[in-house]
């Protein structure tokens, strides 16, 4: 909210007076905003008539909460934040940072003890406290766990910051093992560990990594070359259908079709590239969006080949390089070959490592290409296309290679997606997917691999985590379904992140070469590209 005080009144207004006044303004605005949203609600009565339900109490609560929030922020929050920047006269030091005050050793010990006690009592919580209170206790346990983990990360923050990529890759490589081990200990048997790991490896691990790979692929087009592509999901679809069709019709192996799908997607990338070469900015975005829709509509309507909206099912599974299969009926089924218990988790864990490998390949190629002339030309194209031409760079081929490379990784991800699902239909390749991938790239910071990976984790993992918030039923009653608020929270989180970091999580860019020392280039100098 804008500061509403006039200068001459500002001199006399104490924070309290100002807070009161601003709280009143905030209340008035909240009332105006919410009177129709919250105060009135349309509903059906018993005879199916539309009636207006009046909820003035709820409205009053919301308005009062808004006023209280504004009052507290202006009266206490703002002076506090201002004091944070004032040096103490006696010591000459700035006050301790908020984080240092928040993460303290006694708090950490308390949190660990709480978690330990509650885990120890896990089985008997319901009996001890009753179902209602036990829910809150589990909520408390979750908070304490998060706090303890955050404290550890805060303590090692410089180390983590310095070795982020290595730590991240190690964590990702160990993730399924840790999940299986933890769940095996928790459930008391290895089989239970594998069974329980399905959700964590598949819904979280594989799902997030697919989006990481897609976003890294799109990053080449949008983040490096600065060409806004709203139809990226088309290449994902080309890759998925290439594997689905060739795999089901001709029985070709995944390991042959993976590069083939990549090549086909790259081919379509070039085909899309040609007509849009002359377009820039908004026009480019609209044409690429149309291209994405064309591919989807062709998939729906070309029934003889794609089976229309019904999709293609029975897509063959990936084999372990032809040595072992993951079909229970096959003679070389992995459990028979290795003589272990049958479980569907093996396939998921294998797929997890497969997509992790593909992601690392994408990252490796991207990092390598950035240090090559073609990668530098992409970035130069984003910065200034006319200057590029004046230096003898063929902007046509440069743009086409960006489209083709980005599309190729989309194709890889698509064929992996088809293999993982075992079923593809046009439903999976709607515009919303393109939008989510683009949002990940923008949120992560255009051009930054680490930022994009974190953004994919936050966005895709975040939406999945919001399915897990069953304890909120304890707070808001059994009618409350947290999944319904997923998208709302998600949207709010995105707005907040973009206000807090307008250039994405990692706004700076790493230079590709240096004479003396490698210094990150601030985001304020880099351009977003104009298509």
């Amino acid at each position, binding site marked *: 909210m804008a500061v509403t005080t006039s200068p001459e009144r500002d001199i006399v207004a104490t924070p309290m007076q100002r807070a009161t006044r601003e709280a009143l303004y905030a209340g008035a605005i909240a009332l105006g905003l919410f009177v129709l949203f919250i105060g009135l609600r349309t509903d059906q009565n018993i005879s199916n008539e539309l009636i207006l339900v009046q909820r003035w109490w709820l409205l009053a609560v919301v308005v009062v909460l808004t006023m209280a929030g504004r009052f507290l922020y202006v009266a206490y929050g703002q002076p506090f934040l201002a004091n944070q920047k004032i040096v103490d006269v006696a010591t000459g030091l700035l006050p301790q940072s908020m984080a240092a005050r928040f993460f303290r050793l006694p708090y950490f010990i308390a949190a660990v003890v709480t978690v330990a006690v509650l885990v120890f009592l896990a089985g008997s919580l319901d009996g001890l406290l009753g179902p209602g209170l036990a829910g809150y206790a589990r909520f408390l346990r979750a908070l304490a766990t998060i706090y303890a983990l955050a404290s550890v990360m805060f303590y090692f923050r410089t180390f983590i910051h310095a070795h982020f990529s290595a730590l991240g890759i190690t964590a990702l490589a160990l993730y399924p093992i840790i999940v299986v081990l933890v769940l095996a200990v928790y459930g008391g048997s290895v089989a239970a560990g594998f069974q329980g790991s399905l959700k964590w490896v598949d819904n979280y691990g594989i799902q997030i990594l697919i989006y990481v790979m897609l976003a890294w692929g799109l990053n080449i087009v949008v983040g490096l070359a600065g060409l806004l592509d709203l139809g990226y999901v088309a290449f994902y679809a080309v890759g998925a259908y290439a594997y689905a069709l060739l795999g089901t019709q001709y029985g070709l192996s995944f390991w042959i079709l993976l590069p083939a799908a990549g090549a086909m997607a790259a081919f379509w990338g070039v085909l899309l590239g040609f007509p849009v070469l002359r377009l820039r900015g908004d026009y480019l975005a609209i044409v690429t969006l149309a291209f994405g829709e064309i591919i989807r509509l062709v998939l729906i309507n070309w029934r003889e080949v794609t089976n229309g909206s019904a999709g293609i099912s029975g897509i063959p599974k990936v084999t372990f390089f032809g040595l072992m299969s993951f079909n229970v009926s096959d003679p070389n089924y992995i459990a028979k070959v290795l003589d272990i218990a049958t479980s569907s988790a093996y396939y998921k864990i294998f797929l997890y490592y497969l997509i992790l490998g593909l992601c690392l390949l994408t990252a490796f190629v991207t990092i390598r290409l950035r240090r*090559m002339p073609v990668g530098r030309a992409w970035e130069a194209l984003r910065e200034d296309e006319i200057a590029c031409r004046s230096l003898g760079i063929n902007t046509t081929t440069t743009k086409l290679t960006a489209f083709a490379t980005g599309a190729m990784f989309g194709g890889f991800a698509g064929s992996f997606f088809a293999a993982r699902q075992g079923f593809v239909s046009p439903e999976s390749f709607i515009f919303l997917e393109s939008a989510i991938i683009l949002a990940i790239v923008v949120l992560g910071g255009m051009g930054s691999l680490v930022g994009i990976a974190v953004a994919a984790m936050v966005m895709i993992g975040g939406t999945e985590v919001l399915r897990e918030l069953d304890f909120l039923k304890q707070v808001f009653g059994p009618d409350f379904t947290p999944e319904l608020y997923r998208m709302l929270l998600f949207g709010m989180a995105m707005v907040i992140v973009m206000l807090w970091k307008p250039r994405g999580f990692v706004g700076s860019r790493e230079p590709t*070469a240096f004479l003396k020392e490698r210094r990150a280039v601030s985001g304020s100098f880099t351009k977003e590209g104009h298509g």
Partner: protein
Amino acid sequence: MSDANPSVNDAILQVEHLSMKFGGLVAIGDLSFQARRGEITALIGPNGAGKTTVFNCITGFYKPSEGMLTLNRRDGSSYLLERLPNHEIPARAKVARTFQNIRLFSGMTLLENLLVAQHNKLMKASGYTVLGLFGFSGYRTASAESIDLARHWLEKADLVDRADDPAGDLPYGAQRRLEIARAMCTGPELLCLDEPAAGLNPKESMALNALLMDIKDNTGTSILLIEHDMAVVMQISDHVVVLEYGRKISDGSPHAVRTDPRVIAAYLGVEDEDVETVLIEVGDEDVIEQLDTGPDSTHGPDSSSSYFAGPVIDTVGHSEGERVTVSKGASKAGQVDARSGAAARPASPAEAKPTEKPSATKPAAKAPAKPKTPGDSNRGGGNE
């Protein structure tokens, strides 16, 4: 156009009968000049004279409406620039340029800016990315060489201390030098600089002069530059071409150009009290008539127009069509031509203070005006 007719190899760039029309607007009309190898050729003229358009034609950003642009490389090969695609002019004909409004890759470091300039060389060395992707050593050596070249030019431009800073972070003068260094990293034979001294303080301007002289002396790169800063032009250029309204009005050594009355008039205009005299001497009867009777209320000049802007006929509304050409009479140089011609006719050499130099009379005199009025033809006679 073979006015001086030097040996073909002596001229690195030959511009012949170049015309550039935007719709009805003639930005450049029948321009011919040449830039000699190993020299600094300056292209000057008042604002809007078409200098940057000439550059854009030479570097392929515009396709000229008419004319021929020949670039002769040191190895004897010749390129017709008007036929080459935009990006091949720097790549094959080895013409590099800078821009009037600096165009650096502001989010990339200085070093990266200079590496991007070596794109084509590095692309070949990296086997069009394929070999480099697999880490072949050929690319690695080429990459190290390119960094050495970049360091060389950073040192020349006095920017090596800031090599790892983003280009957008540099002060204005340093950005100008970096743009020149970047252009030099393409290994050009002809370097086209569009107002390199614009916005520089005198000290930076001196440094720029030194850099340009160094380029000329040590690399054998010929320079074609547009400049408004006459100190720079007179000090460093070997040859000056003056444009006005898209036509060449003078061509010669800096000294000759400086004393050419047509150039002086183009820049400074003729004195106020001379305007009427000139118009009368030109013999434009319409003008004389209008001067006598005052402006015609329906076809007369706009209220905002001034006699000093040129002959009245310029400001009279034209109804022939949409073709908007600046009348030849608007050229101040043309007025001087006319005046000197008129002065020569009554055989009063004391009045004719402009000494008639060959350079001013030959192709240039033809450019500003085609004979229309008796005065014009008289002027032609006077010049001969």
